[in-house]
């Protein structure tokens, strides 16, 4: 990470007056209209709004916001550049630390990161750092002619690094390593790059065009991208390191194994894992069937089981596919939902029903083997569990049935077993996650890992943070060759 000195202030608003400026609202597509299309919900701040929002920053001596950011973006610096309407420079400033600002500005949970620790937020609403990040990233994309063409890539080191997986962890690692002067090749199992950003996050939250542009930007820096390549199957870790001339490797495989509930009826037709449902919709564009070949159900009563962001993505997708009743079924209360508040609100605005404190115990099918209803139990909250959230306890005799001609199970992901199956010397823990030290080193020399494959399902930005930490570790390893 580059050293930082306090930025020049460009904020013309007197300090006291800044507190009086209201936090700028995100313009969004009308809820009724958007519930019937896949276009992006949030439309982005205008330039004037961005400047006004930036002027709410009080330029703390000790900017805690940066500590709240897993990739340590120089937040105060880019905010001052926005105050000065120097949007291109603001974008470049973010890019010093974050290779995917247009993505992070859209999908990061800022309210629990930078914005949670924003000093303004102690008494007022925090500065809308996420919205500002998104604004400058979009500005950069729309005004390429204003961007500096100065090369950010260091002189070639002659070293070769293989990155496995093109999701957030892999892309962040690739960005740092290419800038450090290494040759970088990214291997992707699917036919498009982006990992969960392309198969998991819907178009209405992250337009795929934006992702393609971010990948193209890395390509223009010299990163080589290879699709349809499964490390472990097409070629093994050993072959890549020993025969193909890679000096180091980063595994950013993600948490690619859907969990089911292990209840009767789960294999009925119309019951999907969230991964399958979202992949059919996002990666395969099933919502444009039959223009695209991959089919996808259009249900009347679509229920999604779970309370995370993935569950919100799934239920909102089912709504857009025409479900009159798109319902979240969650076993705790809304307070315990892991999803971002913004996502829950967006879902509700679009007409999604949220049923809390209930849990399905069986799915019931019709005579053709298609799901038609879910038998559920009511739950009560007991003492906090390991996660600190109150444990849901079934209420005996509270069984009831709700209609469901489609069910999406969004209760989390395990880790994909492919690499550990084919490369036993890479140690995993009892959940199948790859074990690493704090700089991402696995038990196999030259092989690093980071993101969901290490932590289990987490956020885009944490995966990127892990990728950046591993990139530093890889730089060090390639310099010294030491592995102790």
């Amino acid at each position, binding site marked *: 990470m580059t050293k930082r000195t306090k930025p020049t202030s460009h904020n013309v608003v007197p300090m006291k007056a800044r507190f009086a400026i209201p936090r700028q609202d995100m313009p969004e597509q009308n809820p009724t209209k958007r519930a019937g299309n896949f276009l992006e919900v949030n439309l982005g701040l205008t330039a004037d709004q961005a400047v006004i929002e930036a002027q709410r920053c009080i330029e703390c001596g000790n900017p805690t916001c940066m500590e709240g950011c897993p990739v340590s973006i120089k937040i105060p610096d880019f905010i001052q550049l926005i105050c000065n309407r120097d949007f291109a420079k603001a974008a470049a400033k973010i890019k010093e630390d974050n290779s995917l600002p247009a993505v992070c500005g859209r999908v990061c949970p800022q309210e629990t990161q930078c914005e949670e620790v924003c000093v303004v937020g102690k008494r007022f609403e925090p500065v809308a750092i996420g919205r500002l990040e998104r604004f400058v990233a979009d500005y950069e994309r729309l005004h390429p002619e204003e961007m500096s063409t100065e090369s950010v890539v260091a002189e070639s080191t002659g070293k070769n690094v293989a990155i496995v997986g093109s999701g957030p962890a892999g892309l962040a690692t690739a960005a740092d390593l290419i800038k450090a002067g290494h040759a970088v090749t990214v291997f992707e*199992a*699917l*036919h498009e790059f982006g990992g969960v950003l392309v*198969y998991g996050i819907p178009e209405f939250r992250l337009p795929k065009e934006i992702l393609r542009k971010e990948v193209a930007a890395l390509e223009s820096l010299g990163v080589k991208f290879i*699709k*349809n*390549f*499964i490390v472990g*199957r*097409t*070629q093994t870790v050993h072959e890549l390191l020993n025969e193909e001339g890679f000096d180091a490797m980063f595994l950013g495989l993600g948490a*690619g*194994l*859907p969990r*089911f509930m*292990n209840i009767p009826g*789960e*294999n009925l*037709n*119309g019951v*999907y*894992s969230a*991964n*399958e449902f979202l*992949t*059919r919709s996002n990666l*395969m*564009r099933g919502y444009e*069937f*039959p*223009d*695209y*070949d*991959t*089919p996808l159900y259009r249900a009347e009563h679509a229920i999604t089981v779970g309370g995370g962001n993935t569950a919100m993505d799934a239920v909102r997708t089912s709504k857009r596919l025409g479900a009159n009743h798109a319902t979240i079924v969650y076993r705790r209360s809304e307070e315990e939902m892991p999803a971002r508040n913004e996502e829950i609100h967006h879902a509700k605005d679009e007409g999604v029903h949220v049923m809390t404190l209930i849990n399905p115990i069986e799915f019931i099918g019709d005579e*053709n*083997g298609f799901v038609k209803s879910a038998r559920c139990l009511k739950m009560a909250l007991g003492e906090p569990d390991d996660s600190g959230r109150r444990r849901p306890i079934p209420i005996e005799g509270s069984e009831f049935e709700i209609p469901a001609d489609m069910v999406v199970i969004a209760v989390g992901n395990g880790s*994909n*077993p*492919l690499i550990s199956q084919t490369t036993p010397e890479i140690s995993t823990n009892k959940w199948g996650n790859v074990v690493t030290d704090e700089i991402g080193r696995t038990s196999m020399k030259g092989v690093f890992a980071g993101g969901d494959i290490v932590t289990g399902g987490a956020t885009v930005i944490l995966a990127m943070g892990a990728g950046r930490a591993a990139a530093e570790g890889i730089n060090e390893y390639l310099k010294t060759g030491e592995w102790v």
Partner: protein
Amino acid sequence: MYKIIKAEFIATGVKSFKIEAPLIAKKREAGQFIMLRVHDRGERIPITIADSNPEEGWIQIIVQSIGKTSMHLNTLETGDALHDLVGPLGRPTHVDNWGTLVCISGGVGTAEALPIASAGRKAGNKVYSIIGARNKDLLIAEKEMSLVTDGVFVSTDDGSYGRKGLVTDVLNDMMKDGLVPNMVVAIGPLPMMAAVSNQTKLLDIPCMVSLNAIMVDGTGMCGACRATVDGKTVFVCVDGPEFDGHKVDFKELGTRQRMYKKQEAESTKCYLERMADEAAKGGN
């Protein structure tokens, strides 16, 4: 893009493709499959690898025209290319020296049984093949099979070639003649595999089947291909595709295979209409 080195029809509606794929050819073992997409709006479909040549760098797949994607795929010619191809996927076939191995296959399953028969013979087994087809025109790979086995028996539904009847009838005849297999491998349409599994279960002969489930990614990420084996949910793509036929819930798998029947019919209809339109325009 993945170049088609050679495309040729080998039976009515059944086409063989040799595709340039040097890395997959080098790695691939019997029983494994690839996922492919024909075009940039295409679906991902799994197809078992029938043959490969690591020296020449190609793999072979056999495709029967059934729905939109397979029909479209079968219009491709030598020199054309697939949009996407990834593999090899799935666990390779476990081949042992069982004694006598009988490979029972139907439809394009015969092309997929071929490498297993061949590997079985290399492992020291006496290998027999039973091939089932609806009629003579749909029969494939009989000659190839005869080269790697100790005997080939054919049955057709209509009696147009070989014995009239089903593959299970042929197995019964064989047993009556005193030929008792130590191992049966069944590959083909689901009802055939279910029937052979049933029959061998009664006879107490182990039976391995290669399941064909609907898949999306093919790498264990989505769970579309789940099936119930021995009362437990498995993912055919990463846990299989081969399983103990005596333990497979064929009824559930059959239902799951029909999940998109309506959509598949719609997709095929749209495709055929578009083809007809284009042909009409071309004729002007």
